[in-house]
């Protein structure tokens, strides 16, 4: 494993000797797995490589120069902010350069105009803290408080608090994007000045190119700087309490409150979300997988299984929760009003409030995604859709049915239909399906399940968000477009003619299916004899 000496020297001249290495031990530290998001699976084993070289730029200009060197010497590279997003954010081919962006950690906040400018290395919890010190907030996406703000916003970027705020596209303001050939694109108001306050600018809006629905996983350049919209919050700061592992944010009781309602049935659950949305109240309205309650209660993995092992299909089928976060954004009276309206709605639906802790462990500052690995050791959110609430419910149930066929190796969850909730005050419904397994088991079933979910979505006409880089492009592309795949590949060719930027994405899952013998049995879609891209190995 190596990149050419000439290329190495050129890169070293950009960042200095301290911030580049090809030492095998240091590069080993950038291995994707075997643990982590979507790790311990065939994709991780077959598709990821240890980088041949790692470079740590400090500025956008350095990133540009690095990318130009990569184009000059045909060095494939992958942008990497925190490495949390599993194998898809790691090197995929031999002799690849990993561009670790953690030193791009500049941060500015414009309190008056309510936005923050972050570099690729800035994660969510510091941003949230800085925002809250000033009476504002952001949504920390389900990816977690440890996720890079930029990486999360060009990929996912939602949480239960999206009930109020909605899709992340709208929070992306002025942005700097280094294209795969090193050219710098300034988006939004940055295109015409130094102030990134506005996301829309002259010319085409490239935010769609950046992220589409759930991003392109670093195959169309490197976002080095982004202005992120901050939103007004209530003025009393939630205070951290406790010693790890039992820490939480104590909520100011007259300004913030989580309430869990037990509702009589699924229809009431959905109706509650619609009615709360219609009334335009609450900061979050959600139904999360029921085993999350057991995670929250358990002191350890073994205790989780004690608790969860007591459940069965009947108990899960008949247990319906709606979890609501009230926030007195403008006043205590407003929160009181919201609570009264909420109680009326829930009473009409025959729902009962359950005892709820006056604190937040999961969504406001912490966004505790790391806890997802406690139960089994391996985890991925296999799909998410953003459509309608009614659609979200069907989606989850279809997933639960399909999952039965692959349990084990997937974790027994007794038919829980996953996570669904309101987005944008009920104008959209969100559904996410999460799966868990033990990576020491035979994971062929998990690899199959992952691709079979695409087929299910196509059959049932579910509008999945995980297109392109997450699934075989030649399976999903012809069905979502009908020429989605051709269009995406043309975009890739146009912006990255050498395919140096994170090859073979967006065809990575296609390549995986071709390489992994155990995937052949489920491959029933057409692919070209030769994938239309340069061969890297």
């Amino acid at each position, binding site marked *: 494993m190596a990149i050419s000496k000439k290329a190495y020297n050129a890169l070293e001249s950009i960042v200095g000797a301290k911030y580049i290495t090809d*030492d095998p031990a240091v590069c*080993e530290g*950038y291995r994707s797995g075997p643990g982590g998001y979507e790790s311990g699976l065939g994709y991780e084993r077959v598709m990821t490589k240890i980088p041949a070289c790692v470079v740590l730029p400090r500025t956008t200009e350095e990133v540009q120069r690095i990318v130009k060197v990569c184009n000059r010497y045909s060095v494939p590279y992958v942008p990497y902010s925190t490495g949390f997003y599993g194998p898809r954010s790691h090197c995929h081919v031999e002799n690849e350069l990993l561009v670790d962006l953690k030193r791009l950690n500049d941060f500015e906040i414009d309190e008056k105009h309510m936005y923050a400018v972050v570099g690729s290395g800035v994660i969510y919890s510091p941003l949230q803290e*800085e925002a809250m010190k000033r009476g504002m907030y952001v949504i920390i996406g389900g990816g977690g408080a440890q996720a890079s703000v930029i990486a999360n916003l060009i990929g996912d970027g939602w949480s239960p608090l999206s009930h109020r705020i909605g899709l992340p596209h709208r929070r992306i303001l002025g942005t700097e994007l280094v294209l795969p050939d090193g050219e710098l694109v300034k988006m939004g108001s940055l295109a015409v000045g130094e102030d990134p306050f506005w996301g829309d600018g002259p010319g085409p809006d490239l935010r769609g190119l950046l992220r589409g629905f759930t991003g392109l996983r670093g195959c169309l350049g490197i976002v080095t700087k982004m202005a992120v919209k901050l939103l007004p919050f209530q003025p009393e700061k939630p205070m951290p309490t406790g010693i790890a592992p039992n820490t939480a*944010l104590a909520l100011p009781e007259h300004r913030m409150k989580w309430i869990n309602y037990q509702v009589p049935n699924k229809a009431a659950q959905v109706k509650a979300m619609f009615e709360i949305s219609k009334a335009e109240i609450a900061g979050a309205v959600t139904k999360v997988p029921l085993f999350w309650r057991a995670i929250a209660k358990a002191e350890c993995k073994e205790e989780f299984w004690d608790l969860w092992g007591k459940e069965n299909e009947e108990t899960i089928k008949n247990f319906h929760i709606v979890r609501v976060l009230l926030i007195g954004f403008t006043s205590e009276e407003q929160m009181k009003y919201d609570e009264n309206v909420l109680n009326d709605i829930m009473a009409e639906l025959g729902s009962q409030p359950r005892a709820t802790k006056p604190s937040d462990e999961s969504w406001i500052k912490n966004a505790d995604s790391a806890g997802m690995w406690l139960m089994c050791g391996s985890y991925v959110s296999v799909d998410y859709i953003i459509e309608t609430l009614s659609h979200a419910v069907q989606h989850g149930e279809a997933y639960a049915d399909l999952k039965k066929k692959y349990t084990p190796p997937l974790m027994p969850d007794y038919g829980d239909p996953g996570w669904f909730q309101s987005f944008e005050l009920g104008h959209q419904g969100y559904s996410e399906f999460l799966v868990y397994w*033990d990576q020491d088991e035979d994971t062929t079933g998990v690899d199959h399940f992952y691709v079979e979910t695409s087929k299910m979505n196509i059959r049932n006409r579910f509008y999945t968000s995980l297109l392109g880089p997450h699934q075989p492009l030649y399976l999903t592309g012809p069905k979502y477009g009908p020429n989605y795949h051709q269009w995406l590949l043309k975009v890739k060719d146009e912006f990255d003619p050498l395919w140096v930027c994170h090859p073979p994405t967006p065809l990575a899952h296609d390549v995986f299916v071709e390489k992994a013998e155990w995937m052949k049995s489920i491959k029933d879609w057409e692919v070209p004899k030769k994938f239309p891209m340069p061969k890297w190995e």
Partner: protein
Amino acid sequence: MPTTQFSLDIKKLDNFAYDMSRCIKCKGCYWVEHTYMPGVRFSTRCPSNTWNDFDAYGAFGKMRIGLAMIEGKLKWSPKLLEIIYADPLCGACDVGCKRNLDLEIGLSLEAMRVKAVQEGAGPMPAHKKVAENIAKTHNQFGAPHENRKKWLTADIKIAEKADVLYFVGCSASYVAPEIARSAAKVLNAANISFMLMPDEWCCGNTLFSVGMLDEARELAKRNIEAVKATGAKTVMLTCAEGYRMWKVDYPKLLNISTAELGFNVVHFVEAADEALKKGTLRLSKPQNVRLAYHDSCGISRLADPWTPYSGERGWMGTVNPRLKRRRGTSGLYAQPRNLIAAIPGASFVEMPRTRENSFCCGAGRGTKEAFPDLASFSAKHRLEEVREVGAETLVSACPWCKNNFSQAVRQNGDNIKVVDIAELISASL
């Protein structure tokens, strides 16, 4: 589902293969816990990875490297040794991981060093020098053994026989005698009768920490026998590193539990806090100063007692019998703060990173000897927090912290005063 036998024995790195293989790069080991995240500044708690930005220097990188070591994929090299040893093993990564995942990060890191020694690659030359010093002079500095009690002054009362034995340790005996003197005076003032070990030797902290288990075990046996011979019921320390060594790592070396030591291990802050609560320690002299307190790792997140464990891992990674994970919850967080609060006139201010989220001074566990740059960087980084909160005095509870901070203050040209908590309390008697 087949099960796998394992134990928490650091002599075999394989025991931690499961833990290393389940690291998810959430970097809970690196960032301050998000609930307590103080903002954009002071957002990390890992000295190694703050000092060197490459992932290999964070626990998440080291877990991957540890697996590669098990699989024989990496050859020993100076860089690999630097990755393994440029690390104060401060436990921030361990409690960070156990916030969510319960992986044995701290033990994995210790086991990597043991493997380095087993295979003749480790420890670092500076550590070998410490080992030589200890073998020759029973202290890690190579100072004459006969000077060990030189810190004692005529006004300090030492009992011939007492329930409490004050184990002074190498640092307070030779390098920071003011800590030993202050602690003794506070004990005298609080009417806590104490004795010293007739012939005190090094506790072996550095030897253990760099993976020289055989040498450390011999010292552990010797010291435990010496305590038992005195009939002491409690061993008290002013050194956080020594406290951790006696309470956690002696039992670990001897495959017994902390409770099986046969005596209690306490830190000075516990004894003083108890005396304060009983009313036998009275602090009356005002100190009009703005103070910040640094939680020394050995008495905070590394302080949970040790219990040996062996069992089997089965379905979904569950273990049998049940394992009580050490998550740092036994840390002595309240006691030093109680003591500081009792000083008349003193104004106490918390730094942005406190308790289990503290940023280590960077001196301990073989770091300052082999990687003085890292130790200096870490202390200077922490001093930025002291300046941020406008404290005039930084208080710690370990001579290693005090010495390292004091050096950094001198190098910086700061006007921050660094004191040990024993000195602070003594000054208010």
